């Protein structure tokens, strides 16, 4: 007898439909899985057998062949267990074909018959081609968010079989917990002083400009960076699905509602390998930190401590918004459009003040050179922070709260969207000149910066686009004034290490 059940496998961050076919025939009892299964997939045989027996279901003493179609694609993981078990029961005559008509299953079986969650439930259920799908109860909300069809959650195999046979009704799916607004534990109003830092965050959030912060330990680099994601607007439903797929594929912890609604913040440690940052891997292509930060923020603390080749791998995703990972076995393309924030000390000893610095000039230069020129060019905003004065820390009026700034950012983003580009940082030079001409006073400020050697020609374009974002934040109409340009220049400071040479 032959029976088939729909399921799906993970390829990078997208799901791919797979049909699980089971054939039961007379002959020497045996169990074979064909169709390029990996080790964990092949072990399904033992899990399925134990699960069936524990659930008081018959294990056919016949020749069983399982085929995972399309056979040419490599399958990995334990997500086919439930589909194999159901198809096997149908092929063995325990379930009728009518019962499993239009059913798709995802889930791993425990030896006691329980059904466990598997990584990538969101892209898997999104790709599943079935009129009703069965997923582990533990991740039913994620599947509901990703699949528009009928989604059933089950806890164990016995429950599933009873429901399929119509003996018992399908288990009730608990109501999804309300999408509670994440507690903004990091609020902008906690930031004392740091007027430039605050503006830089706002501009970064509004215009999608990458931000590099330099300063001694304790200057507030990390403190500022942690407050950036809260300034970004909520994800749109398309963005939300993209990001949720990626996080699900990487088996990251999901919010209880099943979908990511806020931009994610990823802060990899500087010991992270190039594969961990970009994605890839030996057996399965896993999304890296750049993809996990898709539609969100990638925070590289102590960027100078990262091996330079690791940091340089970021150049392509920054430019193209995707990573393409090619291996001998195939290649996958994963989205990676993120806002990059980096922080570093001005020199190995961390003292910005040239009087207190204990590093030799050569050491300082070597440290600075760890950021390659092309990468440095990607940072529109470069901030040099100093330790705040004591008076700012103890006294000092609280600044604007995150809610106020977020509103301004949202409005600026709307203005930018009306121009047709996603963010101002992505405007080309021609387009920028067309939509945001400079006033003559504004041009003078830029020219002066060019003449004194503060800016390069490329830097001028970047300052121009930052000036546009600043104008958008102020809802300014008309040519950019000298104030906008001067403020944009102030947000692109030279790295302190090089100026120490006087």
């Amino acid at each position, binding site marked *: 007898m032959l029976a088939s059940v729909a399921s799906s496998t993970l390829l990078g961050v997208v799901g791919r439909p797979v049909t699980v076919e089971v054939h039961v025939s007379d002959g020497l009892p045996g169990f074979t899985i064909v169709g390029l299964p990996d080790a964990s997939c092949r072990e399904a045989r033992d899990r399925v057998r134990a699960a069936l027996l524990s659930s008081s279901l018959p294990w056919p003493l016949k020749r069983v062949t399982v085929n995972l179609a399309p056979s040419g694609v490599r399958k990995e993981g334990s997500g086919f267990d439930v589909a194999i078990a159901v198809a096997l029961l149908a092929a063995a005559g325990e379930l009728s074909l009518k019962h499993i008509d239009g059913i798709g299953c995802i889930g791993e079986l425990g030896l006691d018959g329980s059904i466990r969650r598997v990584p990538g439930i969101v892209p898997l259920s999104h790709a599943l081609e079935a009129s009703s799908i069965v997923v582990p109860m533990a991740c039913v909300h994620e599947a509901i968010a990703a699949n528009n069809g009928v989604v059933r959650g089950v806890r164990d195999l016995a429950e599933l079989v009873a429901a399929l046979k119509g003996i018992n009704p399908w288990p009730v799916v608990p109501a999804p917990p309300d999408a509670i607004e994440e507690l903004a534990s990091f609020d902008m109003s906690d930031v004392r*002083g*740091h*007027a*430039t*830092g*605050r*503006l830089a965050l706002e501009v970064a959030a509004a215009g999608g400009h990458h931000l590099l912060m330099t300063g001694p330990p304790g200057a507030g680099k990390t403190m500022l960076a942690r407050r950036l994601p809260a300034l970004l607007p909520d994800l749109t439903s398309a963005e939300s699905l993209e990001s949720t797929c990626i996080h699900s594929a990487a088996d990251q912890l999901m919010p209880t509602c099943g979908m990511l609604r806020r931009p994610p913040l990823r802060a990899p440690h500087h010991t992270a390998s190039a594969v961990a940052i970009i994605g890839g891997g030996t057996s399965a292509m896993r999304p890296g930190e750049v993809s996990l930060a898709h539609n969100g923020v990638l925070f590289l603390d102590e960027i100078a401590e990262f091996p330079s080749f690791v940091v340089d791998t970021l150049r392509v995703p920054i430019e193209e918004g995707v990573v393409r990972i090619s291996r001998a076995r195939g290649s996958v393309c994963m989205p990676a459009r993120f806002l990059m924030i980096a922080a570093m000390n001005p020199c190995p000893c961390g003292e*910005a*003040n*040239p*009087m207190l*610095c204990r590093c030799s*000039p050569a050491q300082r*230069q070597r440290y600075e050179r760890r950021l390659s020129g092309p990468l440095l060019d990607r940072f529109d905003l470069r901030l*040099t922070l*100093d330790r*705040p*004065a004591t008076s*700012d820390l103890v006294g*000092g009026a609280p600044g604007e709260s995150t809610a106020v700034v977020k509103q301004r950012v949202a409005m600026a983003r709307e203005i930018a969207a009306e121009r047709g580009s996603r963010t101002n940082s992505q405007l080309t030079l021609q387009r920028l000149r067309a939509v945001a001409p400079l006033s003559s006073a504004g041009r003078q*400020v830029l020219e*002066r910066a060019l003449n004194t050697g503060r800016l390069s020609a490329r830097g001028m374009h970047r300052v121009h686009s930052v000036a546009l974002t*600043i104008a958008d934040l*102020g809802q300014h109409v008309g040519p950019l004034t*000298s*104030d*906008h340009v*001067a*403020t944009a*220049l*102030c947000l692109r*400071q030279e790295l*302190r290490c*090089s*100026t*120490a*040479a*006087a």
Partner: protein
Amino acid sequence: MTDLPDEAYAAALASMPLVAASRLHEMVDKFGWAQAWELARDNRLRHAIALRTTSERQPSEVFASWSDHLRQVDVDRYFDRHLQLGIEIILRDSPLMPLTLADDIQPPAVLFCRGDRQWLSQTCVGVVGTRRASSYGVVMAKRIGAELADIGIGVVSGLALGIDGAAHRGSLAGGQGASELELVASSKGRPIGVVASGLDVVYPRQHADLWHAVIEDGVLISEVPVGGRPLTWRFAQRNRLIAALSHAVVCVESKKVGGSMTTARMAISRGLGVFSVPGVITNPLAHGPLDLLHEGASVYRNVDDIVVGLSSRAPWVPLLSTTKRHRSLVERVVEALDPVSEVVLECLETEPRSVDAVVEITGLSLVQVVAALDRMQSGRRVEEVFGQWVVNV
């Protein structure tokens, strides 16, 4: 061999290890350049010249190292390299040797010079200080350099990081005021760089741009021939040259001991005017200049102090009245300020501050402050150093 000029042999001899001016003088006094070279190459100098035995080296080893070195140097080609790089070689007896150096108690035996050598005879002032300067020190050094250039006085310095480089940059940037004044001097003061390496060995590397700008605009000199590394002992020699060449020396910022203090004391021993830029006594970098003040140096308040203090050694001294008029001219340029700029300026006058601090203190918006600073910067009223904004007096 005999058709080579003395300069060629001088370059070869000066390139020998551990050879300072005094040693060269001794050789040349006895044998002349060409013969000294021949004797040194054949290791026959040991009978003529007495070397002290040091803990590190026996005299015989030193003579042998000279001989080994000279056997490897092709005098002709080595000389050619100097010519190709446009390096002039001035021997001790040459009329081209600047008088200040020729008359010094420790005159150089040979001088290598790149750029326009006429600037070596201008009236010039040494500006010395630490390599790790504070923003205050850098601003002061730049300002002194620029003001001296304005009134036609050159800046002598070592092209090092920190104060030296800042003084040279000031000197290069200055001189714009000179045309506005009917100065007696025909031109602005030019930078004179005195370095401890060969004139093709840029040191420190960070100052490569400055190195070439000084060659272009002023003159760069050294006692070290082409290819010579900047060895520690050569810096002491270099400092002596700065003291010898200058008509006065200004010490901007320095710790109690260090190269710049040595230079200043050498200047005192030569009877030159030495000026100290006073600093805050809690700053260790102010202790050097304060010590000098205590030892009898003059205080530097503005460029007039130097004009008054320049002794009769200087061939040309601007009239004090011109420098005073010059400053009033500069001040007149910056009269009108808008109200916001006034507030910002007032805030900066007490001490240098960062943009954030100005925002915090004045309560103005960041955009207002930045715009005001930008306006005042274009009028050269304020300047940014290490992220701090400083008022230009």
